[in-house]
């Protein structure tokens, strides 16, 4: 293309185009007096040829300009838009403008000028489209008197692509005064961090007489590589000197205008990419709901008992659609766990090389989907467990050979569904927990009083105890170490559990059980005195009624009952939560046998009310943290019920037992 001098064709191109413009003008004038479809076609053809020629012969500005006119004519041509006086007027000005461009082309001057840029924008606006930021710099200066609030969250790959946020920040600083607040909440642990990926975000306040276009131009190259919002700053007062704390919260930031840094980071709600098919199915569902609603609407005016079955059918339909809608909406938040697993091949390779161990990593169930929030927070605990498995679980090749095992250790990460939960297992075929060392350490730390008769389960549980391990411990202990209590706490915060199983010489399995979603749980509501408590269905084993003589009292005030061959402690919820007028006698109430963290207890309640779905509201956010309670929900009658934190209660129980 570029070996030929295209300039030799310029003259011909100019001539035919000017002829085309003449024809276009004539047709537009004819149209103004009420013309026909053929006129519209001829106008379109003229514009189309000019656009094609301009692009071919090296007049991209003319091509871009004509492209907008052509788009508008295209809409007229296929009937999406009626031709009216303003459009004819706009097209006539387009003809004049193009003539001017050809004049300048012949004179060798730049083709575009302020007039053509402005007209191009008007054409684009008529088409109903915004021109990409670069071209719009000159036009519609939309300045905000209070300045701007820019939320900027680069995608992970932006740094490697050569767009350094530092450079963008410097360009912004050239526009006006900046107050920059970095958001660090998504920066992974150092071990898990790929330093060439970006996990930072920024909230930037820009004051000064700056147009939105000028800001957008700074971000022009990274539009597709970041989440970006540019909002006018809502200034109650004229922009003050940059005092971060005093600035009003952005629009709609729910009442917490006074909260400074905290509010800013929680404003950053993140985003989810959603497939069109998922949205389409939602729209279908909403359509169904509308139909059902119309059907039920018939009963508003008058209800004839003979039509009861129709009403029942309508209500059943409504229930069905609501459930499906709920599932679909939840589905939008679900993402495959593979995005978290992806980081492990590299981590395992680096770590095993460093430690001189041979490790084969198996990953199963990468497609298992998890709630986005859970997914974001499960990464760190998993990294911890994987590091631990390689660091302390798997043996060196020499030791493995000596033990008659394959020199190559296996580490398996597996995710799968079980009931209403997602289970993630980290399995190694290493040496297993070092029972003696752990007991010795726990004795030394005062976590237990004696190592006698302690079950393997209890030994496993010790490593999760706060204070069991510190960084210093790991080096002199061949067991597991660093911060397992943090791992457990993180998982529990997500409404999940961690359990450990270990066999000496054969390996260790960590099992993380996570809820599918944090937003809604299936629960059983139980009465305790005048109160109602929700027990998550996933943790319920069975409900039983006990005769009074089935309960054994133990020293220290605890109560036990026999269940499937084992003695389990009883937790009286009315005592635990201080409920008045609850039933006191075991035989008058009911025991709900619940399980979490591999432990079981019986919750004593007055009776069951029924099964229901509970929308979880954070108690911490609205009140404060309460031991044994994971959240609250609102019942159908508008009253509030608390949701029992089964894992927490079981932990409290075992701590009481150990004390």
């Amino acid at each position: 293309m570029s070996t030929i001098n295209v300039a030799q064709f310029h003259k011909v191109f100019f001539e035919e185009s000017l002829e085309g413009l003449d024809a276009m003008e004539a047709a537009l004038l004819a149209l103004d007096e009420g013309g026909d479809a053929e006129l519209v076609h001829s106008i379109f053809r003229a514009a189309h040829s000019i656009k094609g020629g301009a692009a071919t012969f090296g007049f991209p500005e003319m091509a871009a300009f004509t492209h907008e006119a052509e788009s508008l004519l295209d809409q007229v041509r296929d009937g999406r838009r009626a031709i009216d006086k303003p459009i004819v007027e706009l097209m006539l000005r387009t003809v004049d403008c193009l003539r001017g461009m050809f004049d300048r082309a012949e004179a060798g001057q730049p083709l575009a000028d302020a007039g053509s840029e402005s007209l191009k924008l008007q054409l684009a606006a008529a088409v109903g489209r915004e021109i990409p930021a670069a071209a719009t710099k000159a036009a519609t200066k939309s300045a905000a008197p209070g300045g701007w609030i820019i939320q900027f969250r680069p995608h992970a790959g932006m740094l490697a692509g050569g767009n350094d946020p530092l450079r963008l920040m410097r360009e912004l600083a050239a526009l006006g005064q900046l107050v920059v607040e970095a958001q660090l909440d998504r920066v992974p642990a150092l071990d898990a961090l790929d330093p060439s990926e970006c996990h930072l975000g920024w909230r930037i306040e820009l004051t000064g007489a700056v147009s939105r276009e000028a800001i957008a131009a700074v971000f022009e190259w990274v539009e597709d590589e970041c989440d970006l919002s540019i909002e006018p700053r809502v200034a109650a007062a004229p922009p003050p000197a940059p005092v971060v704390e005093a600035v009003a919260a952005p629009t709609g930031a729910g009442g917490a205008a006074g909260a400074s840094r905290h509010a800013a980071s929680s404003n950053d709600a993140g985003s989810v990419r959603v497939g069109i098919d998922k949205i389409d199915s939602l729209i279908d569902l909403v359509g169904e709901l509308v139909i059902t609603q119309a059907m039920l609407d018939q009963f508003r005016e008058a209800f004839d008992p003979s039509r009861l079955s129709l009403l029942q059918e309508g209500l059943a339909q409504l229930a069905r659609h609501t459930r499906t809608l709920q599932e679909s909406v939840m589905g939008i938040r679900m993402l495959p766990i593979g995005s978290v697993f992806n980081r492990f091949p590299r981590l395992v390779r680096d770590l095993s090389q460093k430690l001189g161990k041979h490790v084969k990593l198996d990953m199963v169930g990468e497609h298992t989907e998890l709630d986005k929030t859970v997914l974001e927070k499960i990464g760190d605990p998993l990294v911890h467990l994987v590091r631990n498995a390689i660091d302390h679980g798997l043996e060196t090749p020499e030791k493995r050979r000596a033990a008659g095992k394959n020199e190559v250790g296996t580490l398996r990460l597996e995710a799968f569904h079980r009931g209403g939960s997602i289970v993630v297992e980290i399995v190694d075929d290493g040496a297993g927990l070092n029972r003696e060392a752990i007991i010795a350490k726990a004795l030394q730390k005062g976590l237990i009083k004696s190592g006698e008769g302690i079950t393997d389960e209890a030994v496993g549980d010790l490593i999760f105890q706060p204070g069991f391990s510190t960084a210093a411990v790991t080096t002199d202990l061949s067991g597991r170490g660093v911060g397992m209590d943090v791992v457990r706490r993180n998982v529990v915060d997500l409404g999940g559990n961690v359990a450990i199983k270990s066999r000496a010489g054969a390996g260790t399995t960590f099992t993380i059980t996570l809820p599918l979603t944090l937003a809604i749980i299936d629960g059983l509501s139980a009465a305790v005195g005048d109160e109602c408590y929700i027990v998550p269905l996933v943790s319920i084993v069975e409900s039983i009624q006990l005769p009074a003589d089935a309960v054994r009292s133990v020293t220290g005030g605890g109560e036990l009952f026999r269940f499937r061959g084992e003695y389990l402690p009883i937790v009286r919820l009315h005592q635990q939560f201080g409920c008045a007028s609850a039933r006191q006698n075991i035989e008058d109430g009911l025991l709900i046998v619940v399980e979490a963290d591999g432990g079981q207890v019986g919750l004593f309640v007055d009776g069951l009310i029924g099964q229901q779905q509970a929308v979880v509201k954070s108690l911490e956010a609205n009140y404060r943290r309460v031991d044994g309670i994971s959240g609250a929900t609102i019942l159908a009658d508008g009253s509030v019920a608390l949701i029992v934190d089964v894992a927490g209660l079981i932990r409290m129980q075992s701590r009481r037992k150990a004390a």
Partner: protein
Amino acid sequence: MGGKSKGVAGTSVAGRVGMPADFRIADVMDMHRQLRDALNVSPIVLDGSTVDRVDTAALQLLVAFQRDAQKRGHAVTWAGASAPLYDAASQLGLAQTLALPAKTSA
């Protein structure tokens, strides 16, 4: 590739981590390794006094390091921070997070 030859400033001895003159994304892996190792040491002294060029990737690395070290209760102090390092951190709103000292010349 280069990078390796600047190693004198970039080695960690007894809890001291020095940063290379060109501390940017293309050469950031080596510092990542050093800082990961440094997580097992306390107290740690960071020396950024010879940093000439720095980018977001490098600063993010320091942020992750500082936060993780803090989580482990380790003490992190700065032996020095060059003007380019200080300016870049300020521009990204990270100077306080990194607890950078006032500028020191190289």
